[in-house]
């Protein structure tokens, strides 16, 4: 336990959970919300020649997923520096 004594493990974990929840909110928004629940509404707009909701379901959500994971990597590295955790 020696290493943990000088780490604010509780603070680090709370920050991790907060970050996770906000990322999952975006994850939900681009797939379930934009691609399924509000698709009909979004379909009145278009990106290029594709209805927007349809585009989110078949393309957009995937791009956002990739961005989310790399943002998570970056944000966790920042948290680890802040809390002195060796990732």
């Amino acid at each position, binding site marked *: 336990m020696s290493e*943990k004594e000088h780490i604010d493990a509780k603070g680090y*974990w709370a920050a991790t959970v907060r970050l996770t929840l906000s990322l999952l909110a975006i994850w939900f928004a681009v*797939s379930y919300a934009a691609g399924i629940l509000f698709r009909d509404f979004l379909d009145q707009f278009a990106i290029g*020649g594709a209805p927007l909701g*349809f585009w989110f379901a078949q*393309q957009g959500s*995937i*791009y956002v997923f990739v961005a989310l994971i790399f943002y998570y*990597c970056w944000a966790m590295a920042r948290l680890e520096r802040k809390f002195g955790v060796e*990732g």
Partner: protein
Amino acid sequence: MDWTLFFVATTFALYIGIAIWARAGSTDDFYVAGHDVHPTVNGMATAADWMSAASFLSMAGLIAFLGYGGSVYLMGWTGGYVLLAVLLAPFLREFGKFTVPDFVGDRYYSTFARVIAVVCALFVSFTYIAGQMKGVGVAFSGFLGVPFELGIIIGMVIVFFYAVLGGMKGVTYTQVAQYCVLIFAYTVPAIFMSMIITGNPIPQLGFIGNAAGEDISMLQKLNTVVTDLGFQEYTQTNKSMFDVFAITGALMFGTAGLPHVIIRFFTVPSAKAARFSAGWALVFIAILYTTAPAVGAFARMNFIDTVNDATYITDEQNYEQTAAAIEADGGKPVPTWYKTWERTGLLEFEDKNGDGIMQYRGPNSPDGIENEVNPNRDIFVLANPQIAQLPAWVIGLVVAGGLAAALSTAAGLLMVISSAVSHDLCRRTLFKDMDDKTELRVARGAAAGAVVAAGLLGIYSSQLGFVAQVVAFAFGLAAASLFPIIFLGIFWKRMNKEGAIVAMLFGLVSTFAYIVYFKFGGGTPDQYLFGVSPEGIGFVFMWVSGALGIVTALVTDAPPQDVQDLVEDIRVPGTRQPHGMADAGMAPAPAE
């Protein structure tokens, strides 16, 4: 034909070469490739591990027929990686052992829980692997004139080589090679198809662009074309919104709970590397998954353009002369690629009204003509190179790519099966004093046995429904039985043995029963629970099983202090210490 043989032989020789180079020397090498795979390399291996024969051959065709309905696969099979990256992978890596049942057994301090997890892992993996071996057999019999069974045996020998010799280490590096083969084989024809249909070389842009040489968007044109033939609009679906939601959910959470995906994250050096690895895996997967919907739409458009209302030419007629005569009359002859692929049985034309013209119609046919053409969904990826008039060697490449996709997934599944048997059943449950050398021998034996079992399953499962039927099993079970307890095991310290056992058993039994009843037991769609089809039921039962697990945990004793300390350790990278009896000799060294 020669090109196909050339590519298949060359790639197979490459895989065997890698297997010999990457022999495993210890159980660490065998199960987790020594924990020192670079995150980007692991990402690439994970992508190949993940993308099966179904992703490579069937998915684009499935989307071509389902249109918007195909989105469940696209979102479901990619969104799961976000869950893996933020909820599971880094923590499981920090836990630091070999298998998924390992985590379940240690976290829930229970041999019984470990054994149920082994059952789940084996069941999921065997249903999945049968489809892969079958894909190998089909590729061999369709393209190299080798009998189906012999094709499967050749595939078995190849996988045997690198999985049994090299274990996870061999599998990892062959999967990297297999990824390169399969992604090249997938994107090259897609680029040419995109040029033909939209005039844009990048399929993802062509997908949202205009039809080539016209002032109307490709998708809009496709919508008009399909509705004119009595099909549903391409950008719509007839599934209920909740069903689409549930299927997407089952595929996402199932992806995150699939043991052969999770174990790939045990092979990297740290939690940080596990996060990056998930990101890279999704990048490599996304290259194929964002191309697939474009290929689907192009293929559907092209199929209607060239086949619908074409004049059929029988095998007895001379193709060139007849085609020229039809064209001279102002008609449209059946394309050559159609005639080539007709022999494989993947395309069927039945001239119901006897006019010699191939009418392709949907269920709401506006002119009352019955549909006469039945394409198999696998045809689109296979025939793309010919449709795009690419040279013969590209077809050889696509076959090699399909085999790479099937073999890489089969190898990943074999690792799950062999480690579940040698590590979780033998070393951790039955013979606890087994040493490392013996375990490695048992692991090799188990991998060899699993190869043979998978091959036999591939040969004898031809009578059962194809992959699509059993895929529902694998994802539903992984979502309902494995995901909730792994997630709760990390994020809720209070989760205990009793809760985990109840949750796993409920998820396993309920999902299994529901799928069997509706797929094989004669259940009809009007009996669906909340209108959810068997493909999506794992998502519904996942919540129920999680809730049951939580309630059970709350009314029983809290887990021992040791286990709660273990959970705190895996949440904070670099602080992992051994905890308790079971962990004492087995705890991983902290990352350096």
